[in-house]
């Protein structure tokens, strides 16, 4: 109960941060951080995969509606929701089944950043490539995805650090 409340609150606050803060401050064309995917990353490993996909679609459509991007964010978010268990099995032997919670505290720095880094990069690359919608922009999309993923990871690191400091799980 306490856990599900935490996830709902995280969903709302990440969407608000993404729409009203990160999308309002325009840093550069190459830096477009998407912090909202942290919600998908931190869902419990035992959470039904079907529901993860539904939540991914919902989250993507909300962000799409506010950025006028018509489908790019939602297809990228659905993709990472689907790939999440497979990436999770890279950092944990039993595919994450042994983990009660996914967080920086539980996974430790190295495993957490492998996990979130791969998800971040896949998400940003899909997003930028779909946005460009042109085969010839592959390398530019890769470069933009790399820069934006690094910035997103820094933001995720700050958020996770502040969470583990104040809320003792």
């Amino acid at each position: 109960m306490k856990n599900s409340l935490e996830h709902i609150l995280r969903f709302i606050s990440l969407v608000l941060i993404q729409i009203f803060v990160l999308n309002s401050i325009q840093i550069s064309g190459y830096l477009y951080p998407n912090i909202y995917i942290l919600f998908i990353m931190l869902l419990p490993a035992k959470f039904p995969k079907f529901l993860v996909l539904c939540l991914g679609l919902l989250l993507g459509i909300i962000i799409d509606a506010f950025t006028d991007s018509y489908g790019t964010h939602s297809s990228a978010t659905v993709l990472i929701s689907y790939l999440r268990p497979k990436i999770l099995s890279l950092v944990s032997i039993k595919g994450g089944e042994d983990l009660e919670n996914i967080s920086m505290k539980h996974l430790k720095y190295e495993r957490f950043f492998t996990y979130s880094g791969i998800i971040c990069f896949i998400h940003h690359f899909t997003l930028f490539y779909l946005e460009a919608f042109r085969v010839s922009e592959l390398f530019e999309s890769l470069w933009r995805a790399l820069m934006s993923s690094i910035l997103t990871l820094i933001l995720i690191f700050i958020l996770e650090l502040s969470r583990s400091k104040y809320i003792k799980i």
Partner: protein
Amino acid sequence: MRNIFIFILRYHVLITFIIFEILTFSMLIHSNFYNSSRFLSSSNFFIGKSVNYFNNFQQYFFLKDINEILIEENSSLKNKLNLKLKKNNLNQKTEYIEANVIKNSTSLKRNYITINKGSIHGIEPGMGVCNHKGVVGIIRDISSNFSTIISILNTKSLISTRINNTNHFGELVWNGISREFAQLNSIEKYVDIAIGDSLFTNSYSNIFPEDILIGTINRFSISNEDNFYDIEVNLCVDFSNIYNVYVIKNNLKNEREKLESGTYEK
């Protein structure tokens, strides 16, 4: 029948994944090829309202800047009014509808701007939008209270322009890289252009009236592949700083369209 259920049950995750991806891709492709109404965009009522609330709050921080812009604009309008009176030109071909930007982006490939005026204020899709400095974009979607604009900083935007010194026309597009520069196509090699030449809108399309500034030529080179220049245009509008815009309503649009469609049919 039973086997089908077992199959669906076993692969339900993969099946939902594929269904969702088809759904989102169809949204994406639909928005790329058709200009029909899209219910999920910031011209939607609920989304427009919430963006508007946040923007009201945000604007307090920029009041000083906005004031300065308004003063600057007031003075330039007064100058124009004086010129108008001298010319004694009473023929009111175009009207300007004032609107505020409530949402804007410059970091994407396809940037859209949302304004707080819609169909009840007389805005229609396809109208041109400018601010006190120059051209901003073209209206795309409208709802009763809000509209979205394709800004020049959108890889899908295309604006017809005229070079001031030579009167040759070209097409202004954006390659998605820098928010300060756009590209000008279809200027042939024999045209005599120079760095610093200004570009204005032309009245070939019904969207903009004659002589609204777009930008100046920043750099140009002759391409080896075809007969056109590669021209980089320094846009006069600072897209990271637009608050007040004017939607241009052309009162003679219907008359002209009717005449032209009649001409082309014969």
